[in-house]
């Protein structure tokens, strides 16, 4: 089956990104396809590659990066939500005249249309949030 996953909360503060990760891992293990993971609201914060979590805790972003790379998952960060919250890729940083960017390479920034498309193309869209 083809899944879309929507993540609405940032790492650590809420369990949403962790539960979604465990769900995605189990879906892949069961032979399902993850068509796309869409990061919305504070979920865009998962894409930051500047986080340094305590050594004895999980690294939410790294977990996602590894799962996405191993399974070629399309990881999309909502541009409007990301701009509000200070998440930028190199292109965006340049376009906005900002001095730095902070999105890990596996994530790509795009519009909400990507979420709607996931809703259209997937058999199920599963939401994780607060």
């Amino acid at each position, binding site marked *: 089956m083809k899944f879309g996953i929507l993540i609405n909360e940032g790492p650590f503060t809420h369990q949403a990104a962790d*539960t979604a990760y*465990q*769900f995605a891992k*189990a879906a892949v293990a069961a032979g399902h396809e993850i068509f796309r993971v869409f990061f919305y609201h504070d979920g865009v914060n998962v894409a930051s590659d500047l986080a340094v979590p305590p050594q004895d805790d999980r690294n939410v972003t790294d977990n996602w990066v590894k799962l996405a790379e191993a399974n070629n998952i399309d990881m999309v960060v909502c541009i409007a939500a990301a701009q509000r919250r200070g998440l930028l890729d190199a292109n965006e940083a340049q376009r906005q005249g900002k001095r730095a960017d902070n999105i890990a390479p596996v994530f790509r920034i795009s519009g909400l249309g990507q979420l709607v498309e996931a809703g259209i193309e997937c058999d199920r869209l*599963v939401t994780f949030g*607060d």
Partner: protein
Amino acid sequence: MAMLHTVNKSPFERVSLDSCISMAKKGSSVLLIEDGVYGALKGTKVADKVSKAMDGITFYVLGPDLAARGMTEERIISGIKVVDYAGFVDLTTKHENFQAWL
């Protein structure tokens, strides 16, 4: 058409479980995850409400979230099924649509 609902909030703190129960049709399923797993405990002030809703709705609870919160299966209302993440995935495939009561 059978729908899968998830509830991830404590029923002692928020109204999500109430709203979910009142809008879940007979034949649908509710999966309790994250802080929502507290809704599966027996002997609480919300347990009766859940038991009553089980006449028509099938309840599931996510085992890893229960264990994290120090709850063992014998504290769960009888008839609520414990699933793991693979079971969560299965439930989404076996129901025709999905709603998360955030």
